[in-house]
């Protein structure tokens, strides 16, 4: 039986990835661990290379931690669905959909 992943577990894993990823970002670009922080879109300070690196890292970490394959890059590269990754809140929502 598949174990349900709680929101708290998702957030914990996400924040751990943010901490690690922030090491590679300049102070201006660092991701703040608050739900309304913009990651994709006009308001975001992250460039496309930052984002693909972050999403790949998150996909790999998610698989390692929960044995679930998530496809954030597909969403990121899809023009239509891109807004679903606009901030941390929406990202957590997407992660919650994978079971």
């Amino acid at each position, binding site marked *: 039986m598949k174990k349900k992943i709680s929101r708290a577990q998702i957030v914990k894993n996400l924040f751990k990835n943010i901490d690690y990823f922030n*090491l*590679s970002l*300049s102070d201006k670009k660092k991701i703040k661990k608050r739900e309304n922080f913009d990651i994709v879109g006009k308001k975001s300070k992250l460039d496309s*290379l930052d984002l693909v*690196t972050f999403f*790949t*890292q998150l*996909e*790999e970490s998610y698989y390692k931690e929960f044995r679930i394959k998530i496809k954030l*890059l597909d969403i990121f590269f899809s023009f239509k669905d891109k807004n679903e990754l606009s901030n941390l809140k929406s990202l957590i929502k997407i992660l919650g959909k994978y079971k």
Partner: protein
Amino acid sequence: MNSYILKIISDFNVKPLENYLNNFNKKKNLIAETAQYGNIFNNLLKLEKKNKYSGLLLWTSPEKMIAEFAKSLEMNPFNEKKCFKEVDFICEILKKLSKHNQIFFVKWNVEHDLRGYGLLEWKSNTGIRILLTKINLYFAEKLKKFNNIFILDFDKIIFSESENFSRKLWYVAKIPYNEKVFLKASNEISNIIEAIKGNDKKIIIVDCDNTLWGGLVGENGWRKIRLGGHDYIGEAFKNFQFHLKALSNSGIQLAICSKNEEKAVMDAFKHHSEMILKKDDFISFKINWYSKSENIKNILKDVNLGMSSAVFIDDNPIERENVKLVLPEVLVPYWDDDPTESVNRVNSLKCFNYSSFTKEDRNRKKMYLTEAKRVEIKHKSKTEDTWLKRIQTKVKVKSVNSENIVRTIQLLNKTNQLNLTTRRFTENTFKKIFKKPNNLIKVIYVSDKFGDLGLVGIISLSINNGKSIITDYVLSCRAMGRKIEDLMFYLAIKYSKNNGAKIIEAKYIKTKRNMPTLEIFNKSKLNQMKKNHFVSNKFSEFKKPKFISIE
């Protein structure tokens, strides 16, 4: 302090490496810039002329650099000689570039899971791995005489975990490795550059009980300590000692700082049959009940080394915290009571790098041990003059030649305390500067009745229109305090006079660590005209120190 600007050239996306280097090295003034990835040869050709970069880091894939090697990856027949010919071409470019820049070249490797010819991978003229190994060896042999070219082996970083290769990142962004690889590589590169700048560690100060061996030697005696034998804990301590001995053989000094009974410790070194380290492997012992920070200060004073040159290893967290607090410049790594981790811990310290290796490095331990004998006589002598007379110092002054150039540049680049301007050189910039007829450089060899200290001093002058400027005044810490400093002023005056100078000047450039130089200049016969600016035209005031003979 001048910034060290590192240009990273790669045929894949190395932006994450640039980010890590820049984020973690702000205080060290290390700035990394990446060139547009791909187009390696174009990028290199652009840099053939003098440029703003201190160093170039090349991290490339063999199949992109060597067309003949690419055939092997396609499992097509290849010609080894053609591969070497292509390597020759790359070497020629690197040699040219090394005239202006330090070159760091990451050794080529193949993907971790490359299967190639399986069982035949190590069959000559068939296997891909054996071919690349030969190419790497050929490349290293070709460049071995170039002191400005360093080959970095990142295999231990790249192959530490199979997940370090990220095919997804490669397909998405042309980044072959995950962030862990770049983070570790950034750490490695910044440590290497620090070593080149002379900021590496020179001495390990160790505790004894539960650090060098298991148990308390003072309470139980040397027979009951755990070291070697049919005991995994004893084996772990013995292996740790073996690693310390190897570091010591490579020029890193060892000293003991232990709250203990001195006799008990010495008995252990003398009598324990499994003791790898012997008394003579240590250049200083402080075995008493004083505070460790005080003892460390005294050890470093005895051997003329700065606080930032030292690493302190102790299993006791209270002692470690105390040293960290009182002597923040000393590196105090985490150390717990599990000796099976000791070798890993010492290997993970990235502060022992060698940008050059000379005869002086190999003999350093012997030199420090003879220094201890000198100090002993100094304490017994009533006056400094009596001591100086007894040690019979002899000095040889030479020009720079092919035999001493590596040591000269190493001394210029590594000396921090007694260094007037802390100018750092590559071999080519050094040759270029001292080729000019008005620039003069002399190196100083010192020996005495206890032994040979080797090349320990450098004085360089720039002489123009009757004015002589001391451009470098460098003395190794192990030769300090025996009037060589005064002899160097005497020599500066002598060579200035011989070259028609009527006035001599020196401008002290302050760094974090060269305060002793200012003290020596303040005590000299030079007059401080403006802040840190010393002048004299009274050449006759500078005498050769008594009791030093020049051969």
